[in-house]
């Protein structure tokens, strides 16, 4: 995925003078020889042109997994648990990619949970009420799920445009606009269909939720996705290297290139291997056997990659592209770094800010549709307090509240770290209030360490 793409375009490039990540701080040795090892690590990261902050987060994530794996006697480290954690991370991760751009440009969006709730509910209404009851379309038809998702996305975009317009063109602070949105859009859900629970969802629509058996893409498609991603990694690294060489710029040494390719592909294929080692649970296997008139004895059906995770991968790539490879993303960062400079450079800052909110709304719509599909029901409480999880994911993922700093891949990893902590604590039997205490403390701790590290780096 994008975290291994070596061409670092974001401000968090290596050697940027920013200090070590919290994780590095934690492991930063005090003794002389260990300090030398630490310096070697930094130098190595610079030579390989990898983002040390991001690498630190990945190491921390693996550390969490191993820790909970040990504490749960391996229960946490099963393919089944990885499947569940990844599916549960998707909604927050998708919205966090948009929140990065919002926070980078020195704004905030408190309404994402409510937008997600409203759009998810409207996706449910589209398929259960408007299309089928009012327009008499056949239930289970191919077009139904597409229209439902489109409704969620378009409504999200419109709400985002309203927020963005008020922030950018009227000049109301984003905190106020989206605080209003937090209340208003949630309230509006109850005015639709009297706030009843709408269930169940269309069969095709529920694929988006990742529930079994329909929500995973199966054995061979999983490998194909893995191989396509590997080809993408190799292609991206080699073309950028060729281009830099043609301009006579310094390039990373060959060993660094090869380790990046091997490391990246191994990570991708390893993940696909884990997904393909999750067999369909016995009850569902028997049902499958009965449906296909075969014997269930010894039948093992690998589940494969979850559909919503595949969607998240796609969104991550698109958002990463928008952020680092398009002028729009560059403008967002420039505005976050110095709004006056951005204006004086001739950037249409208002339109750019509007764009970040529209994008945020679209992502909320997608997250709403996925969450509704996962619950297999449209309920009024979908996305409640998700704004806090989304902001936390973005911030844990290295987004700075001062603006101008953040990455898409960091936000996605931030969301996975949070979900891993949550699931891990459930697995080891920590009770719910203590989970909140732990996650809340972790958030402050992570950001606090980062702040201290950055101050020292200056």
């Amino acid at each position: 995925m994008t975290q291994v793409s070596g061409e670092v375009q974001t401000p968090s490039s290596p050697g940027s003078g920013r200090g070590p990540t919290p994780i590095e701080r934690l492991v930063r040795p005090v003794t002389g020889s260990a300090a030398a090892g630490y310096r070697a690590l930094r130098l190595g990261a610079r030579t390989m042109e990898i983002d040390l902050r991001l690498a630190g987060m990945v190491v921390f994530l693996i550390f969490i997994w191993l820790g909970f794996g040990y504490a749960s006697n391996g229960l946490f480290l099963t393919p089944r648990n990885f499947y569940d954690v990844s599916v549960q991370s998707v909604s927050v991760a998708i919205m966090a990619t948009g929140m990065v751009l919002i926070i980078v440009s020195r704004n905030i969006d408190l309404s994402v949970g409510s937008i997600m709730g409203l759009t998810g509910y409207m996706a449910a209404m589209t398929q259960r009420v408007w299309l089928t009851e009012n327009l008499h379309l056949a239930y289970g038809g191919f077009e139904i799920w597409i229209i439902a998702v489109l409704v969620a996305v378009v409504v999200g975009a419109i709400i985002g445009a309203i927020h963005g317009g008020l922030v950018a063109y009227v000049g109301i602070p984003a905190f106020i606009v989206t605080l209003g949105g937090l209340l208003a859009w949630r309230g509006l859900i109850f005015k639709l269909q009297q706030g009843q629970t709408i269930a169940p969802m269309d069969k095709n629509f529920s694929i988006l939720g990742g529930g079994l058996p329909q929500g995973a893409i199966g054995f061979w498609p999983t490998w194909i996705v893995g191989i396509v991603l590997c080809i993408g990694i190799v292609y991206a690294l080699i073309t950028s290297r060729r281009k830099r060489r043609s301009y006579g710029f310094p390039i990373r040494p060959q060993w660094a290139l090869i380790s990046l390719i091997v490391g990246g592909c191994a990570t991708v294929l390893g993940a696909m291997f884990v997904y393909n080692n999750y067999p369909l649970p016995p009850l569902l296997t028997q049902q499958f056997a009965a449906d296909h008139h075969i014997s269930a004895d010894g039948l093992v059906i690998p589940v494969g990659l979850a559909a919503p995770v595949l969607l998240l991968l796609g969104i991550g790539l698109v958002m990463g592209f928008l952020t680092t490879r398009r002028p729009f993303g560059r403008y967002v960062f420039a505005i976050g770094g110095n709004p006056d400079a951005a204006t004086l450079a001739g950037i249409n800052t208002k339109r750019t800010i509007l764009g970040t909110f529209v994008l945020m709304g679209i992502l909320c719509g997608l997250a709403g549709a996925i969450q509704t599909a996962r619950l297999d029901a449209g309920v009024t409480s979908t996305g409640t307090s998700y704004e806090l999880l989304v902001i936390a994911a973005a911030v844990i993922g290295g987004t700075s509240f001062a603006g101008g700093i953040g990455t898409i891949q960091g936000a996605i990893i931030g969301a996975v770290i949070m979900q891993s902590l949550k699931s891990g604590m459930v697995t080891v039997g920590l009770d719910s209030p203590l989970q909140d205490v732990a996650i809340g403390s972790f958030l402050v701790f992570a950001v606090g360490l980062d702040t201290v590290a950055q101050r020292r780096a200056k």
Partner: protein
Amino acid sequence: MSISPNSETVAASAVTDTPLVELRDICVSFGGVHAVQDVTVNLRPGEVVGLVGGNGAGKTTLIRTLSGAHPADSGQILINGRPVTILNPRGAKALGVETIYQNLALAENVDAAANFFLGRELKSRLGSLDDAAMESATRRVIGRLNPNFHNFKVPVMSLSGGQRQSIAIGRAIHFDARILIMDEPTAALGPAETAQVREVIKQLKSEGIGIFLISHDIHDVFDLADRISVMLHGKLVGTVNKADVTTDEVLAMIIMGKMPGEVTQRELAELHG
């Protein structure tokens, strides 16, 4: 035959007499305060006009109407004799007006090339940013201005004042500027870097670019400018040819608002306390 030298003189003076830029009767006020009041200045191709005055004299405000940062309340801007409307920085750039701001106006969190091309990024055929091409152009231009500049992949915040200045100047001259506004270009620089900026100004002048030079440093202005326009309390005191005046006379304009003919020897002597 006898007409020929005459007509040549006429033609030559016609070229130099059509101002590249003319700011006519510009007024800008903030609330009830008249920051700039009925100021008229002009600039010819290949000419450096020094714009001097004390703090709050209105130099920067006047020039911001030309760079598009803050539109004038009234007055007219002519470029090559044609009236233009400049609503924003983008519009100014489209007319060939580039500005080097006193605070440099750089985004601290992105690298040199990103700042260099901010708002006019180079794109590949597929519409994505062509970072390699942008870095290449940035290295070429800045390498010429400042051979010691090597940190092209780090955020601007970790660069020195001189290096930042190189980015700001390089960015202004790379895009075929015809009119350059430099607001205190040497205020934050050391002696070596200041000398470098002076060289750049002389070279740009020889290429026919018109430059408005705003500076506190009267010696800078005397070294570089052809004409000097002095402002005081938002009004133009006057514009003089550098060759016709002494630094003391310009100081008298800045401090007392008196033109060289109006000022007495005694007042001039008092300037030095």
